[in-house]
């Protein structure tokens, strides 16, 4: 029972990071119907930036975290301006945007490689105080609690922003119909840029939390999570924020339980993607269907 409980905690945690990553991913998709394949590269750079700030600039993680998240958000603005905006008026904007985002991903990854090298880097010891609680045989660390708290906080803030804030309503309006939104006087380009900022900031935050927990950052750390993030948003329903959260948790749990039961990590991805395939057969539009961003 303890073993199962611990595995559920393990899965909940990794699922939370997946969810945070996927929420950013799905946000851009919900607004623009475009997949931003550079999202995983932003995830990586966010993590590495936090590492650099802690290691080279001597900041504490509490200062480095918001700064690195801001940096990731700015990367999102760069992405929008360089990779997406010039192509927006073209008839093949969905496809060409996809390709140019792949190019940006390669550029970002190569930059990271040049600055940090190909090997794994780690946060200096003591970056986060190590506190461990044991509740009836289940182990939870302070770091895990902090990470889950950060994930929940950001999710709630995002949902509230989309639901209540003026800019959130504008994002939903642009997602619903760009033409109509423009006619109503909404600065569509500005809203799209803001969406990229938000999406990339969340992606960067996920990268920092991922890096803090596993304490092994490298320029290619975004690769495995890129496909998983895609699977998570398909599972949750493309463009749906609550769907991405649900999908992330489901994916994390399925991974952990597969490894626990089979005793090997080889089947981990196979089971997760088979599950995805099965759900697609039953619910082609994902767990929470389509269009939820518009309704929020």
């Amino acid at each position, binding site marked *: 029972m303890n073993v199962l409980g611990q595995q559920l905690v393990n899965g909940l945690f990794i699922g939370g990071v997946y969810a945070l990553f996927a929420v950013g991913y799905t946000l851009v998709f919900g607004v623009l119907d475009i997949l931003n394949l550079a999202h995983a590269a932003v995830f990586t750079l966010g993590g590495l930036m936090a590492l650099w700030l802690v290691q080279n600039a001597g900041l504490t993680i509490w200062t480095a975290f918001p700064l690195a998240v801001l940096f990731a958000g700015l990367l999102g603005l760069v992405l929008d301006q360089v990779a997406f905006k010039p192509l927006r008026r073209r008839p093949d904007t969905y496809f060409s945007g996809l390709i140019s985002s792949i190019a940006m991903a390669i550029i970002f990854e190569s930059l990271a490689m040049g600055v940090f090298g190909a090997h794994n880097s780690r946060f200096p010891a003591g970056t986060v105080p190590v506190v461990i609680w044991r509740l009836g045989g289940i182990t939870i660390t302070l770091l895990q609690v902090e990470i889950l708290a950060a994930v929940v906080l950001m999710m709630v803030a995002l949902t509230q922003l989309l639901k209540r804030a003026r800019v959130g309503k504008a994002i939903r309006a642009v997602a619903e119909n760009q033409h109509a939104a423009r006619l109503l006087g909404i600065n569509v380009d500005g809203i799209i840029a803001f969406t990229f900022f938000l999406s990339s900031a969340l992606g960067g935050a996920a990268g920092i939390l991922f890096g803090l927990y596993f304490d092994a950052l490298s320029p290619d750390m975004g690769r495995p999570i890129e496909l998983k993030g895609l699977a998570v948003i398909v599972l949750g329903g493309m463009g749906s924020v609550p769907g991405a959260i649900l999908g992330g948790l489901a994916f994390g749990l399925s991974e952990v339980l597969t490894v626990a039961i089979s005793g*090997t990590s080889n089947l981990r991805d196979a089971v997760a993607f088979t599950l995805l395939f099965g759900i697609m057969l039953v619910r082609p539009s994902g767990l929470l269907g389509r269009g939820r961003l518009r309704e929020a």
Partner: protein
Amino acid sequence: MSKNKGLFRVSVASLALMALTAWGLPQAAEAAEAKIGCAFSMTGGAAAYGATQKNGASLAMEQINAAAGAGGLKLKLLFEDDASTPQQGINVFQKFINADKVSMIIGPTLSNTAQVADRIAQQSKTPVLAISNTAQGITEIGDYIFRDSLTEGVVIPNTIKAIKAKLGIKKVALLYGNDDAFTKAGYQAFKAALAESGIQILSELSFAKGDRDFSPQLTQIKGMAPDAIICSALVEEASGIVSQARQLGIAQNVPIVGGNGFNSPALIKNAGAAAEGVIVGAAWNASSPLPVNKKFVEDYTKKFGTPPDQFAAQAFAGVHIAYQAIKKAGDPNNRAAIREALTQIKDLDTVLGPFYFTPGRDAGSQPVVQVVKDGKFVIFGM
């Protein structure tokens, strides 16, 4: 006039050509210098190991040449990148053997590369000294292939015997990387050694290269309450496993036991306090009190800013072994005599301990069992 000028040009050109050719010719009468080809992985998957091998080898060359004095035999190491692939390994070997005409070859970094490249050296009767290949069947390729790296098949049974004798381990869990030749070989060696010592294996779990999350496997292991966790992994994964195990609350008195892959200062640096008590069977002990080893660790740390790992130590020892053999053979160009001299090396004082080659041309040095104590590898049970 113009004709004369043309003639002048032609003669200058031919003079220059002659000078170049003469300069390019090997000068047989020159004071003795032995060329050794070093095929290390500077790029690709094994780049991290190739880098410290190169450091260890160049340090040895510097010290040997400084000690040789004016008239003595000097060494010239030629470094080429085998790119962690067999194809490039073959190219590098062919260049060494046919173009550079080296006395012998040190390397390549990976066993996979050695399996094919060493055959070429054997065919052209060029001695090869492997310094990091631990797979089965490398020295069986032929009588020109030697190695100073102890195989997992020697190191691991020794480790298992030691933990059984000193800690009374009865039941263990096995965790290994199942998509890598080295970690799989380690797993098989552990399994055989455990069976021989009559230690029960509660469960076998595996992970894949590049994994970062080991908590599902470790949670299962924790639930089985083993006496020890036996682990075959390279240092990156090993660091993650060690720190996550302690974080999950697997008690410090359940030791994690690893092989050659664990024997790197990076393990202690990465895992920090969690690395305390980790038991590592290996070919080289960093804190060995041998004077030659103490000096090596000091010089290396001073020159490169980081302490050496086992790859650097084996490369350092390899260059010394090669130098002794070439010196004894008397002629850097007589490869057959160098081969003969290698087989006769005995009680050579190296950083790996007193060194000789077994009749099968494998390392005759003694494996060590170490434990991490106060952030250092010390001999286990002392």
